[in-house]
C-alpha cells in the first residue's frame, strides 16, 4: 500500500518534469510545424550552461539558471532565423536540420565538458517524509515552476497579441500572413520560447539527477511519447499526457520493473494512438 502511494507521488513529480519538457516540443510543432530533434540537446545544453555559470562564473543557482536559459533561448532564436526559416514550410528539411543540430550540439558539449558527468548539485536538498513516502523539496520546486510555466504559456497564447498571432499562424499560415502577421518575425521568437522551456527543464532536472552529454536521446523519446499521446500542438493535451506518462511509468516500473515497465509504457501509448489517432486531445486545426 505504501509502495502504491509512493509510486503515485513519484509519478506526479515525473509528470511535472515531463510537462515542462513537452510544452516546448508541442508548441514548436503546433506553431512552426517543426519536429524538433534538437529538443533533447537543448535540455542538455540548459543543464551544462547552468553548470558552467555556477562553477565557472560562481553565480548563485537561480541566477545561473536564468542566464543559461536565456543563452539557450538566444541560441534557438539564431538557429531558427538563420537555418530553419528558409525551409520552414518543408517538414522533412526542418526535421533533418534539427537532427543535424542535435548531433552538433551533443558533440560540442562532449568536446567542451568531456564525457564524464560533472559534479552538479541542486542547491536545495532534504525531503518531506511521511508514512511510507517522501517528497524531495527539489521535486516540489520543479512542480511549482512547471505549473507557473504552463500557466504563463497559456496566458501568453490566449491573452497577448503575440500569442494570438502565433495561434493564427498555427491555424492557417497563409491566412495569418494575409492579415499582416509576419512569420519571419514571430517564428524565431516562438522557437526561442520553446528552447527556453527545454533548457529550463534541463537546468532544473539535471542537477537533481545527473548531467551527461548523451542524455538528449532518451529525453527526446519521452517528449515524442507525450506529444503523441497528448495530440501534437495541444498545450492542454501535452500537459495531461505528461502526467499520464509520468504516472504510468512510475507504476509500471515499480510493479513490472524498469525494462518491462518501459515496454508496457510504449505499448500503452501505441494502443491509445490506434484508438484515438489524433492523440487524447489532438485538435483538428493545429498541425500540418
Amino acid at each position, binding site marked *: 500500500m505504501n509502495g502504491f502511494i509512493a509510486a503515485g507521488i513519484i509519478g506526479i513529480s515525473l509528470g511535472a518534469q515531463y510537462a515542462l519538457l513537452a510544452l516546448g516540443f508541442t508548441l514548436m510543432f503546433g506553431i512552426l510545424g517543426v519536429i524538433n530533434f534538437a529538443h533533447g540537446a537543448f535540455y542538455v545544453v540548459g543543464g551544462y550552461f547552468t553548470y558552467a555559470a555556477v562553477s565557472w562564473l560562481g553565480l548563485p543557482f537561480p541566477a545561473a539558471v536564468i542566464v543559461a536559459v536565456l543563452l539557450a533561448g538566444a541560441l534557438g532564436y539564431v538557429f531558427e532565423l538563420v537555418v530553419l526559416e528558409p525551409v520552414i514550410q518543408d517538414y522533412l528539411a526542418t526535421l533533418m536540420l534539427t537532427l543535424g543540430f542535435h548531433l552538433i550540439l551533443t558533440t560540442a558539449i562532449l568536446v567542451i565538458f568531456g564525457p564524464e558527468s560533472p559534479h552538479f548539485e541542486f542547491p536545495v536538498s532534504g525531503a518531506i517524509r511521511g508514512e511510507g513516502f517522501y517528497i524531495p523539496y527539489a521535486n516540489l520546486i520543479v512542480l511549482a515552476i512547471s505549473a507557473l510555466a504552463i500557466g504563463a504559456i497559456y496566458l501568453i497564447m490566449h491573452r497577448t497579441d503575440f500569442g494570438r498571432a502565433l495561434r493564427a499562424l498555427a491555424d492557417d499560415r*497563409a*491566412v495569418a500572413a*494575409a492579415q499582416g502577421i509576419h512569420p519571419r518575425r514571430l517564428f524565431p521568437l516562438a522557437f526561442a520560447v520553446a528552447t527556453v522551456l527545454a533548457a529550463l527543464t534541463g537546468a532544473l532536472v539535471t542537477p537533481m539527477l545527473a548531467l551527461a552529454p548523451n542524455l538528449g536521446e532518451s529525453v527526446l523519446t519521452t517528449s515524442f511519447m507525450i506529444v503523441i499521446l497528448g495530440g501534437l500542438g495541444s498545450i492542454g493535451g501535452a500537459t495531461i499526457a505528461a502526467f499520464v506518462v509520468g504516472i504510468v511509468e512510475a507504476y509500471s516500473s515499480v510493479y513490472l520493473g524498469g525494462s518491462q515497465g518501459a515496454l508496457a509504457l510504449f505499448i500503452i501509448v501505441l494502443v491509445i494512438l490506434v484508438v484515438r489517432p489524433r492523440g487524447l486531445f489532438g*485538435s*483538428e*486545426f493545429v498541425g500540418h
Partner: protein
Amino acid sequence: MTAVAEDRFPRADWELRIENISKNFGGLQLFRDLSFVLDAGNIMGVIGPNGAGKTTLINVICGQLPLSSGKIYLGKRDVTGLPPHTLSRLGLVRSFQQTNTFKLATVRENLMRAMRFAGSGPDTWNLIDDLLDAYELKARLDEVSDSLPYGLQKMLGLLLAYVTKPKVLLLDEPAAGLEQRERGNVDRLVMHAQENIGCSILIIEHDMELIRRLCPHIIVLDAGNVLAAGAPDEVLSTRSVIDAYVGRSDDDD
C-alpha cells in the same frame, strides 16, 4: 465506374441533398442545421462573407472533414461519413482554391493521373480536347505544372476535377486570384461540363458577376446559416444580404 454514359438527361442520383448538417471545431460552431438541395443537372452558387464556412462546407461534403451531425445524400444514397476517395468514385468531386495541381508533374501527367485515379477512360482526352485548345494548354502539355502561370495552373486544377467525369462537381472559388480577362475561362469550363456530361455543379465564389452569369439559383451563407436563397438578382438585393457584406474584408476563409 464513373465512366458515365454521355446521355444528355441526368439521372436522379445526380442530385446532392444536404440535410441539416452541423460542424463544430472544438467550441466554435461553423454552421448549424444547414440544409439545401442541388437538383440534378443544375448549377447553384454559394456566396457569403469570410468565416461564413463556405470552404468548410465543401470540405465536409467531400469527406475531408468529419461532420458533427446531419446527413448527406447523393441521389437516394446516404454518403454521410464516406472517405473522399469513395465519394469521388461515386461521382462527387471537388476543385481546390490553391495548390490544386501536382506541382512537379507535367500537365499531361497531371491529367493522366486524374483520369487514372478516377477510372475515367483515356477517351476522356477527346472530352477536354477543345478546352485544352481554348486554354492554350495543348502546346504546354509537357511543361511542369508548377512552371505554368497562375491562371493556367488554376484552370488545370479545374480540369483535373472535370476529367473524373463527376456527377456532382463542387468548385471552391474557381475565379479567386484570376485576372478579370481570365475569368471567362471558368465560365467556359462550367458551360462545357453542362453540355457534355450534364453534371450538377456547386460554385462557391466571391465574384458576384460570375455568380450572376452562371447560377440560376444561389444561397447566401452567413455565420453558418442560410441567410437567403433564390435567383441571384432578388437575393443580392435583399437588405440582410447587403448588411452581411458591409465592412467585411475580402479574402479567403
